[in-house]
């Protein structure tokens, strides 16, 4: 993988692989349209891409399920996926590469040394810090160690998936391994979070294209590309007219569910979830979860596993596990009321008595 003669620019690779100018132009047009860039940007992307040096990419996997990599390697068309591999030089990926064991570790060291300061790192999976990081080791090195060592020479880090972006499922309560997102460990490098469980394939590839051509894209507060994470699912949901009309499915098989009404009452997290599902959709643009009748789980948000109480609890619900303390408070309030009233009566009686004695003394005088 690393020993082959390096083709320097993307144009070299495209010509060598017989990718026609039109195919390439079409790819740039689609990407620009997908990223909601002005159509004229497609020409800029095309120009930049052709003269760009193919960045060397190191793909690291930690606490993850490989779902994100599955998603990436199944981007919407096989040709686009190839296009991505034409554009970057994937020099290290222990899941995809042929080399294993010592060989692969050496490969990583060489890539880092040869491209120091220039390579891009793609990380999927959270990083466990508990017990000195023993819960995830590769070749005798802990994940934290590998991450910090590899990040030193990286130009930027793209976190693919909610686990590397925000901790995801490994970080979910009770987080036995002490998992944290990459951004908790690496703080001195540009980080782009492409969250989602998994992220939409085209969102991953377009983010990579944007990075290669126009640099780090505009990001939101969670370091996610605004082009894909600028709107909530709810903003673009085709069931929105029903939400506004107040028509809700109450169960998964009632009349509302069959009529395709809004899933808010069934726990939809669309209103607080930033992702491109509603516009980009899944499986070659077939549909997205809400279209299949299931509420959004909020998978692209930090702490999505725990933060809403339940996937099926409506967003408006209070996050209170038990109302007992409130009942107790009411009881205590009533008791306090009895106490106050009693005190007031006592004081009143004392006053009456005092007045009586005063009267008596004044009479006696």
């Amino acid at each position: 993988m690393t020993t082959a003669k390096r083709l320097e620019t993307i144009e070299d690779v495209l010509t060598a692989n017989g990718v026609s100018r039109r195919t390439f132009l079409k790819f740039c047009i689609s990407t620009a349209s997908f990223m909601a860039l002005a159509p004229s940007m497609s020409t800029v992307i095309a120009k930049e891409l052709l003269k760009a040096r193919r960045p060397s990419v190191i793909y690291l996997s930690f606490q993850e399920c490989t779902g994100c990599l599955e998603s990436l390697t199944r981007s919407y068309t096989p040709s686009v996926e190839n296009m991505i591999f034409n554009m970057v030089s994937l020099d290290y990926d222990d899941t995809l590469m042929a080399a294993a064991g010592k060989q692969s570790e050496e490969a990583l060291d060489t890539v880092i040394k040869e491209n120091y300061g220039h390579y891009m790192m793609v990380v999927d999976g959270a990083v466990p810090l508990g017990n000195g990081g023993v819960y995830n080791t590769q070749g005798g090195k802990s994940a934290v160690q590998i991450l910090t060592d590899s990040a030193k020479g990286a130009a930027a880090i793209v976190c693919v998936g909610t686990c590397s972006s925000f901790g995801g499922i490994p970080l979910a309560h009770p987080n036995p391994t002490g998992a944290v997102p990459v951004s908790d460990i690496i703080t001195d490098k540009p980080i782009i979070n492409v969250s989602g469980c998994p992220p939409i394939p085209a969102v991953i590839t377009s983010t990579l294209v944007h990075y290669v051509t126009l640099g780090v894209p505009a990001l939101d507060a969670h370091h996610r590309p605004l082009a894909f994470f600028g709107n909530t699912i709810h903003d673009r949901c085709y069931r929105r007219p029903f939400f506004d009309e107040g028509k809700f499915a109450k169960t998964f098989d009632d009349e509302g569910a069959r009529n395709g009404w809004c899933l808010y009452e069934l726990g939809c997290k669309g209103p607080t979830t930033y992702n491109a599902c509603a516009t980009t959709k899944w499986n070659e643009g077939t549909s997205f979860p809400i279209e299949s009748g299931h509420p959004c789980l909020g998978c692209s948000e930090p702490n999505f596993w725990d933060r809403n109480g339940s996937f099926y609890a409506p967003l408006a619900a209070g996050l209170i596990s038990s109302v007992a303390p409130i009942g107790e408070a009411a009881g205590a309030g009533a008791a306090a009321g009895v106490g106050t009233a009693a005190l007031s009566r006592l004081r009143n009686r004392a006053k009456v008595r005092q007045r009586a004695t005063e009267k008596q003394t004044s009479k006696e005088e």
Partner: protein
Amino acid sequence: MIARRLSDIPVKVEGDASKTGSTTGTVGGGLIAILREITEMLERLARYDESAAIDLRSLPFSPSDYQSLRESLGTGEVEITLNVDGISRVRETGFAGVWWVEHRSPDDELLAVLLEITNIPEIVVTNRDEVARSANRLRDRLSIHTAGGNIQ
């Protein structure tokens, strides 16, 4: 009633049809705005030879809006189908210089829909480098041929 789709939700289109020459008889306010934009782009193309494009998917259009836009623009004389990693269709509209361009993936998924205001969309034109490259390729073959090889 069975599951509703977005396109089944009734959309009311308002406006005065006679002003835009539409064949359907109804034109929405958004549509008029985009037709105005196209007009301006056409004027710039005529005067300064400046091309422009509109990404139709970036507009908040409903399917029926697309339909009326299509109908207002009509069809022209040229229609080109490109086989570039999936089908791309380049169609001249009833207004010379306005092209309706659709790009699809090999799975026929719609990747982009553009209105290009230009003499001829760039994806159709053959570019200089390509011409030079094919000249080289052909010359190579000829030299193989004269050296006793076969033209394949």
